[in-house]
């Protein structure tokens, strides 16, 4: 393979995950092959329990795979074991994760929650706060900047979580139902932002969703069932 040839940002080969052993064994994900390219926004569909979150967690290096290989940005991350010693650094620098349950830190206010990841990546405080403000304003939660997460509505918390995931300009963005708590208009704003980030940062965006309103926003859609990718659809031609 030519070194200059484009490579997928995410490469999964036979990636599998099971929980428990024997009677209690659950095969959450069975031998998934998946290549995700810079600049594309893909959707993951499937019934509850089909393995969508599991797949995101494997790509996000939050859960250890059981079999297969995982390459991120040209680096082999997992093959039989973790090959990258500092997974947290990898997550901080390359991966933006929008969690299904937001996971905002309750003791930080909204803008601190967003600025924290920049602070940890060593950005100066002023820059971190400016960036946080920009993202929050774009997502229309700027007015809640000094609020504590516990006082936010579900949709506001979701948008703060999105701002945090994007703050460090990651190349791989994994979003678990990012529009579940949003109305159609705001869901559209979020998808526009994710699209913009994919193009500007040549990032890959993976979105788990049940939300039919946004299906036409994806370059490709993968349907999962019982831990396998069963169909692939291209509602939108890749740019």
């Amino acid at each position, binding site marked *: 393979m030519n070194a200059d040839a484009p490579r997928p940002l995410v490469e999964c080969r036979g990636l599998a995950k099971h929980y428990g052993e024997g009677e209690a064994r659950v095969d959450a994900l069975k031998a998934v092959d998946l290549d995700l390219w810079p600049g594309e926004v893909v959707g993951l569909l499937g019934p509850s329990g089909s393995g969508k979150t599991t797949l995101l967690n494997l790509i996000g290096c939050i*859960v250890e795979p059981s079999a297969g290989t995982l390459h991120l940005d040209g680096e082999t991350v997992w093959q039989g074991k973790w090959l990258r010693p500092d997974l947290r650094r990898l997550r*901080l620098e390359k991966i933006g*994760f929008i969690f299904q349950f937001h*996971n905002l830190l309750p*003791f930080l206010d909204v803008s601190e929650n967003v600025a924290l990841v920049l602070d940890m990546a060593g950005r100066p405080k002023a820059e971190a706060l400016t960036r946080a403000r920009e993202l929050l304003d774009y997502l229309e939660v700027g007015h809640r900047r000094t609020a504590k997460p516990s006082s936010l509505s579900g949709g506001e918390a979701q948008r703060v979580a999105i701002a945090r995931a994007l703050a460090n300009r990651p190349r791989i963005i994994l979003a678990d139902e990012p529009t579940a708590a949003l109305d159609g208009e705001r869901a559209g704003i979020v998808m526009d932002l994710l699209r913009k980030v994919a193009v500007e940062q040549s990032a890959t965006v993976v979105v788990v969703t049940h939300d039919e309103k946004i299906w036409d926003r994806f370059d490709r859609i993968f349907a999962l069932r019982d831990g396998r990718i069963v169909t692939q659809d291209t509602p939108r031609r890749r740019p």
Partner: protein
Amino acid sequence: MNLALRDIRHHLGRFLMTALGLGLLLGVVLSMIGIYRGLVADALALVRTPAAEVWVVETGTRGPFAEGSRIPGDTRESIARLTGVTETGSMTFQSLEASHRERKLRLQVVGWEPGRLGGPPAIAEGRGLARSRFEIVADIKTGLALGERIDLGGDTFTVVGTTRGAVSSGGDPVVWMALRDSQVLQFRLSPAPARREAARGPVAAGAPDTINAVVARVAPGASVEAVVEAARRWKHLAAMSQDEQETILTRSVVEKARQQIGLFTTVLLVVSTVIIALIIYTMTMDKIREIATLKLIGAPDGRIVGLIVQQALALGLIGFTVGASLITSVKDLFPRRVVMLPEDAASLGLVVVIVCLVASGLGVRLALRVDPATALGG
């Protein structure tokens, strides 16, 4: 962005209550140390008042505080004639219980010859003794007021002066009276057989001329050891330096108390350590989800360890400050002296810091083991 501080502010009330509780505990530890220091200070207060350099007592005894000592009244003159001796004084020491205004009053009576060594420290109110008999200088802790009269051993004494902080090693307040008065008092209060035997002595009519100790000062440049050596040559006398006398007192009077309080303080410190460790462990347990989230978003271990250790230190230092200020403000309400030495407070502060660091080890261990995936559930 300091996470420890932010988290403390988020649970400020709970954090302050915890620190207050810990402060009370540390206050108890500090007061134990203060009580011990007070005990030592009290034990040495009386023996230091004459500012003597040599103590002469009965042979074979370690008197007059640790053991009884009786020597003839003319001993002082013999000692005064030794080379190097500049000042001397005859002294008696007697602890008694007097009934005064319908209540029992425990007193340490000290007799001395006004004008010679052995009198009260600075007079707080009133004056020293002027007449040769029936006057006393009493410590404020006796509760006796200036001009008040008190019956001691059948004679009535008038309080002409007061002192502050003069107590015996047992904590009883001191009353000073003229040597002759104190000898009569000792004679009247001594057990009957001893009195009969003493009556056969030289001063059959009244109380015998017996004293408990002679104190002496030595000229600058003269050797205390030489005077002690010279005094020991009298067969019926024993002599010791001020240092030796203080050592005897601390050994005999304070040693048991020191061990007792030392052991208790150790137990308290162990208890505090366990409590601090538990508090920090629980504080960490309460933050498991946040710690997992921090790991999810890529926080390095240093940030997480810092969160726990800084909170532990803040807790310890606030608790310590609360405890120290509490004890400093109430120490005078204790019935016996409580002495707060800055170096004791400093060493306890240091111990608290170390304990907090050790105790946060448990919390840190827990935090570092947290699986980031635990934050993913709802």
